[in-house]
């Protein structure tokens, strides 16, 4: 086996040095009764060539934006990935290291995380960000738990327009913590219904959670949400599943959010069937010590040189044990590095330009689709790069027909929203050329005729 260097001679010599007769003797403490007395029932080893052949054969069974015209979004987005990213993260000093417990030989990781924290603060308009969470959904769940700790309250209002997968993960995290999760209705414009919110807010409410943009691609009135939440002393959590939008939109921090939890997949991470992505998590200065996750801080070494270390570890599981702010240990470090490189390359101008292109492409698609007979737009609130389309014909049939024409037209909404069973969610990014959008429109038209 090429990953294991031992020769038979080595093994003999090492066993002698240890003072045992055989490899079996090394396992004397494993009781006979629990020993596995047969070989593992797994396929025999594959050579490098065989392995790649097998995996490539699996790869071609998947549809991607290379094989289909794709308009799938809903929390994972097909965006431009600069070539530089994969080549840089393939430096094995980055990807074969672990958590920077020994700062003297981990300054590369530590400085990059410090830069990631800074970029996330700039992007979200918040004061402090951590070194990453698993994904946007689990970051959102951690935000809810943090709001519960900060307010010592147990009631959480979740907008129904928040990504349903995020809502589900929040529910999982809160399952046995005696918390009350309450839905807030969606208004006709696709935003969180402010009247319903006002009616449900009370002084037992720990947090209000809304997407920005929300699951329907609509841009929430974050200022109004935060004002309402703050009136009763609740925290406003904004979940950002599509951070490209923040290249253009006012930052949640500027609009009064207390915690921003989001997903950085749009920033240079491949879709990879759902992960690994990277959760980001940003808070106000006063709440830093209540944050989950690892934090990197700047300091100096013995000689006065600038350096970086993991800091405020007394919040964390390995020290605080059962009173820790979270149980998170491994995070999504390499994915955070990818997002950091992406933000460095795109920079101030690039992220703006990318956001504007998304806005324009989606606006064009909306306009073209709205003219197709048998289809209509559902929400009229301001939108970014996604929107909901209602179909007179059954959604499953429409999507299946378009699949036949090589188009993944969108995500059906019926499973998560029975009241929107006749709708699907369309996402258009800078990667969708005009010709693709026109093809989508033509295909929808074809069916209606």
């Amino acid at each position, binding site marked *: 086996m090429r*990953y294991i*260097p031992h020769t038979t001679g080595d093994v003999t010599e*090492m066993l002698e040095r240890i003072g045992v007769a055989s*490899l079996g003797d*090394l*396992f004397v403490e*494993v009781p006979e009764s*629990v*020993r596995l007395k047969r070989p*593992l029932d*797994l396929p025999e*080893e594959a050579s490098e060539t065989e392995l*790649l052949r097998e*995996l*490539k054969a*699996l790869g071609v*069974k*998947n549809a*991607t934006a290379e094989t289909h015209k794709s308009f799938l979004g809903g929390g*994972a987005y097909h965006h431009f990935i600069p070539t530089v990213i994969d080549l840089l993260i393939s430096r*094995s000093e980055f990807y074969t*290291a*672990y*958590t920077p*417990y020994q700062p*003297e*030989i*981990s300054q590369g990781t530590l400085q990059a995380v410090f*830069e990631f924290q*800074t*970029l996330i603060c700039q992007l979200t308009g918040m004061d402090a960000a951590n070194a*990453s969470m698993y*994904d946007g959904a689990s970051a959102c769940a951690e935000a809810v738990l943090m709001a519960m700790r900060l307010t010592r309250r147990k009631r959480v209002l979740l907008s129904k327009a928040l990504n349903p*997968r995020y809502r589900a993960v929040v529910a999982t995290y809160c*399952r046995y913590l005696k918390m009350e999760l309450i839905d807030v209705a969606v208004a006709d414009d696709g935003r969180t219904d402010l009247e319903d919110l006002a009616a449900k807010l009370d002084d037992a409410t720990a947090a209000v959670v809304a997407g920005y943009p929300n699951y329907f691609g609509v841009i929430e009135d974050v200022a109004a949400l935060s004002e309402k939440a703050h009136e009763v002393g609740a925290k406003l959590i904004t979940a950002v599943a599509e951070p490209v939008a923040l290249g*253009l939109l*006012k930052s949640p921090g500027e609009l009064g959010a207390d915690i921003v939890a989001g997903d950085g997949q749009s920033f240079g991470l*491949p879709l*990879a*069937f759902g*992960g690994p992505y990277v959760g980001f998590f940003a808070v106000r200065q006063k709440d830093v010590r209540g944050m989950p996750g690892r934090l990197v801080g700047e*300091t100096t*070494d*013995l000689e006065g040189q600038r350096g970086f270390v993991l800091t*405020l570890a007394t919040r964390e*599981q390995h020290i605080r*044990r*059962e*009173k820790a702010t*979270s149980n998170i*240990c*491994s995070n999504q*470090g*390499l994915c955070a590095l990818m997002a950091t*490189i992406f*933000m*460095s390359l795109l*920079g101030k101008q690039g992220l703006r330009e990318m956001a504007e292109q998304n806005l324009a492409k989606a606006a064009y698609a909306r306009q073209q689709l709205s003219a197709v007979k048998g289809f209509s737009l559902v929400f009229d609130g301001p939108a970014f790069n996604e929107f909901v389309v209602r179909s007179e014909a059954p959604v499953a049939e429409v999507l299946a027909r378009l*699949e036949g024409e090589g188009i993944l037209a969108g995500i059906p909404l019926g*499973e998560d929203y029975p009241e929107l069973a006749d709708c699907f969610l369309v996402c258009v990014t800078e990667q969708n050329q005009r010709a693709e959008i026109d093809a989508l429109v033509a295909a929808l038209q074809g069916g209606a005729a």
Partner: protein
Amino acid sequence: MTIVGTSGLVLNEKLLFEHSDPGRKGYSLPKLDVPAARLADDLCRKEISGFPELSEVDVVRHFTRLSTWNYGVDSGFYPLGSCTMKYNPKVNEVAARIPGLASVHPATPSHLAQGSLELMYRLQGALAEISGFAKVTLQPAAGAQGEFAGMLVIRAWHEARGSKRSKVLIPATAHGTNPATASLTGYDVVPIASDGVLTLEEVEAHMNDDVAALMVTNPNTLGLFETNIEAICKLVHERGGMVYCDGANLNALMGIARPGDMGIDVMHFNLHKTFSTPHGGGGPGSGPVGVTEELIPYLPGPGVELDGENYRIESTKADSVGRMMAFHGNVGVMVRAYAYIRSMGPSGLKHASEMAVLNANYVRARLEGVYDLPYKSRSLHEVIFSDKDLEGDCHTLDVAKRLIDYGYHPPTIYFPLVVKGAIMIEPTETESQEVLDEFCDAMIAIAGEARDNPDLLHQAPVRSRVRRLDETTAARKPKLKWEKGA
């Protein structure tokens, strides 16, 4: 002895933001081919204040220089205990980047994502076989989230029986995340001050009608097999509880013994430890969870199922504890782990565990007598020493820092807490006898330096990019981001 540590030319590098120059650009986007659109002004920000402006060369050089300040498994020996820093096979990196696997959208309909689903189905089957569990979910993102999923499953099982048990037993030798995980599941933690191997009597003394589960790590964080595990599981079951096993140390047992055969009910895997996927400077990991037949209904959902000849994402079942992640977990990590299992085959996996245990015992044999060995029973995949016998007012931290000068990543230090000044060494199977010999020579030399010239240890490291850092000030006055002029 050849000292690997040296000081070559190490280049300085500023922060990204200090390089930024207005007007520089590191990207290219196609020209917009549709009419421009506008949002209402009051929705838009002016600019992202502080965001950098850099050329592609600036960015490439920046991160290349940063990478040289890091030490990874590819740089050298990385014996970080309980983290299983084995070699990360390169073909796995290529595998995860195969276009069809890397770029499939998670909301793609199942019949158009058969490749990924088939891979996931095969992986969950392989993990079930290796561990002896009835079923495995791949959803959790890392070990700690796997623990959480596993404890949720246990709690859901209790609740389904109307059982209101509120406590979880955790021995001191269990993994560090376990207590925080138990709290997250709404349980109170009862620590067992176990010393070495957990005894039936210790568990019996704490096991009562209010205890929902025992959380163990096997082999434990002392590198010892829990020899009483069968009797302990039997006792916990008889008294109405469940046994959770932290699978962080599974690298000792592949093909040797299976946790599912020991009476354990739930266990998480760390694909980034046992199954060779890279640790990425902190992550991503992947923390699948295996359970017994009885617990299958409570597993997180949705899962991957085979329906005749078609693989599909099964909708979440009524009794499931729910969703852990927005989508299907860290699938890219799963591809690497699958590639590893396929490359190793059944005998290769067993050989890996045998060589991992051989290596740990070899390091132990070479260092016993030089460093204090608090537990004498046979080590499995890792060995724990302490700084008790060190001279010259030198401690574990000093040994760790001095090892850096010799060119090694230090072991895990001051963990587990049951050993004062713990030095926890896990060599893994991918290191040769020569590497272990050089490392042990360095450890022995350091013990000698502690006696003869302790200042060498107290001043260490001197060859690294930075010297010891002021962690106290970092925590007292946290500076967590760059600010202009600050």
